[in-house]
């Protein structure tokens, strides 16, 4: 474990809260002079589950997989632009698979000492409890986790 942090990983999923997380991660990396990595995982497991459940036909799975790849590219490009604004070096990584599983592997292999996540979901229903990938990452991460609350102040401060 390194304090101050030397290897920060931010998980992106396209949500507004993950965009807040990347902004926070960029500022943190700058202050700690840490290496910054932004990761997007194309959730191919969810796609397979939807085919198995009969919700997607196979042609649709292929189409959505392409859409998810485009989503990933778009958000990773955005993360790069944000980092460039603040003169912070960033590595972007696109992975595929079961999100919390491939993230755990990446955190281990990259020897990350901090994972930055956007907000975890409010627990509003027993059925949805622990179902989100962000929640699972929070619980299975091999390194410390920082959960960034989706806060307008972070956006304002970043853009200042």
């Amino acid at each position, binding site marked *: 474990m390194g304090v101050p942090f030397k290897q920060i990983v931010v998980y992106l999923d396209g949500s507004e809260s993950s965009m807040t997380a990347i902004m926070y991660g960029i500022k943190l990396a700058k202050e700690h002079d840490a290496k910054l990595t932004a990761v997007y995982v194309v959730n191919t497991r969810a796609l397979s589950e939807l085919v198995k459940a009969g*919700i997607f036909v196979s042609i649709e799975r292929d189409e959505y997989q392409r859409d998810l790849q485009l989503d990933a590219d778009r958000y990773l490009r955005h993360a790069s632009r944000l980092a460039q604004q603040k003169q912070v070096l960033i590595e972007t990584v696109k992975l595929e698979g079961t999100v919390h599983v491939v993230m755990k592997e990446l955190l281990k292999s990259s020897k990350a000492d901090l994972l930055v996540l956007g907000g975890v979901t409010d627990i509003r229903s027993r059925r949805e409890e622990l179902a989100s990938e962000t929640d699972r990452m929070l619980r299975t991460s091999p390194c410390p986790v920082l959960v960034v609350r989706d806060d307008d102040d972070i956006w304002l401060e970043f853009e200042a």
Partner: protein
Amino acid sequence: MNVLDVLDRNLVKVPLMHTDKQGVITELVEIMAKAKGYSSDQFEDVLNAVLDRESLGSTGIGNGIAIPHAKSDVVEHVSLVVGISKLPVEFDAPDGQKSRIFFLVLAPSKEASAHVELLASIARSCTSQVFRRMLEQSRDSDEVVRLFME
């Protein structure tokens, strides 16, 4: 993204009026169009997108559930309409069972990730037979929302 992120009591209808597949799909799209103030062209666009998807294969998934869905840039964000029918509707489900619980899921093409997550969340929510039975027996939209909140 999960069901509770987009569930809106104004987009829940109990009971649905139609008793055939085309009628139910049209009714679900109408609920969305009315709530969002779509023009008749927008309504047609969304309806055609859902019917085009349906032509690839039925979205009746069995256990009395159907999840008609489509991508449409008429919708701004991932959206959900829930309908419960008193009478079982033939939806060409693989188990041969007629459907009474309907989820219409619409999403713009730029929100593929959220779209996939919402569909997966619906599938997870409906794995429980008890939950499905309670949904089928719900009397109004408030009860449907309450069931998802439990």
